[in-house]
């Protein structure tokens, strides 16, 4: 049995046409995305290291880090005996 006819746009997801990337330099959306990503990663690392905001080794106790976890429950950690 013959293959069904293909739609003309079925290659859109994987085809990189020659006219697609004619611009040079870094697009604005990449700069914005990069700044946001950098801020998010920095916040994550700071939270992980300092234990503030519910992350990190120092806030795994009751009422630490701005919210309360049950006794022994540690965020990004295991329940202590």
């Amino acid at each position, binding site marked *: 049995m013959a293959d069904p006819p293909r739609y003309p746009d079925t290659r859109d*997801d994987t085809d990189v046409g020659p006219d697609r990337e004619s611009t040079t330099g870094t697009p604005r959306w990449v700069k914005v995305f990069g700044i946001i990503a950098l801020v998010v990663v920095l916040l994550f690392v700071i939270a992980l290291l300092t234990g503030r905001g519910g992350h990190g080794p120092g806030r795994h106790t009751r009422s630490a880090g701005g919210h309360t976890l049950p006794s022994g429950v540690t*965020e990004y950690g295991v*329940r202590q005996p």
Partner: protein
Amino acid sequence: MTMTPRLRKFALTTHVISSVGWLGAVAGSLALAVAGLTSQDAQMVSAAYLAMELTGWFVVVPLALASLVTGLVQSLGTKWGLFRHYWVLAKLLINVFATIVLLLYMQTLGSLAGVAAETTLSSADLSGLRSPSPVLHAGAALLVLLVATVLAVYKPRGMTAYGRRKQHEQRMVSQP
């Protein structure tokens, strides 16, 4: 290495299924996290955290890893490449970052589920279980995965320096 059209379609299909499935599973986890945070019923709170841990290990984590692997195969097996286009690179960074945070946070969910599994919960344990942390993590994950989905659909223009160099090399080869 470039895949055949049939293999390419298969790889794309598995990548879409795993990525969108991951998004849906996180949305479900967010609903459970909201239920765990807001419900006044102790059994509902316990059930929400137990369900979150189960779906986390058996649905969210496998789908996240599948999305990462199929994304790598899809990019390396097509002309898109992994480091040539900014949108592909951005999706890779989002996927790796989200997977790392997910795997770290599964330990926290395991601890919360451990408390929730106790037959008798003290009022302190119950109030402690009503943590905003799962809601914040699931909400942030949903937002990040939505961004990745938008990038995948719109494919915004922009090539990296490496991509431009590779494109130039290919043009030189095809037009000596």
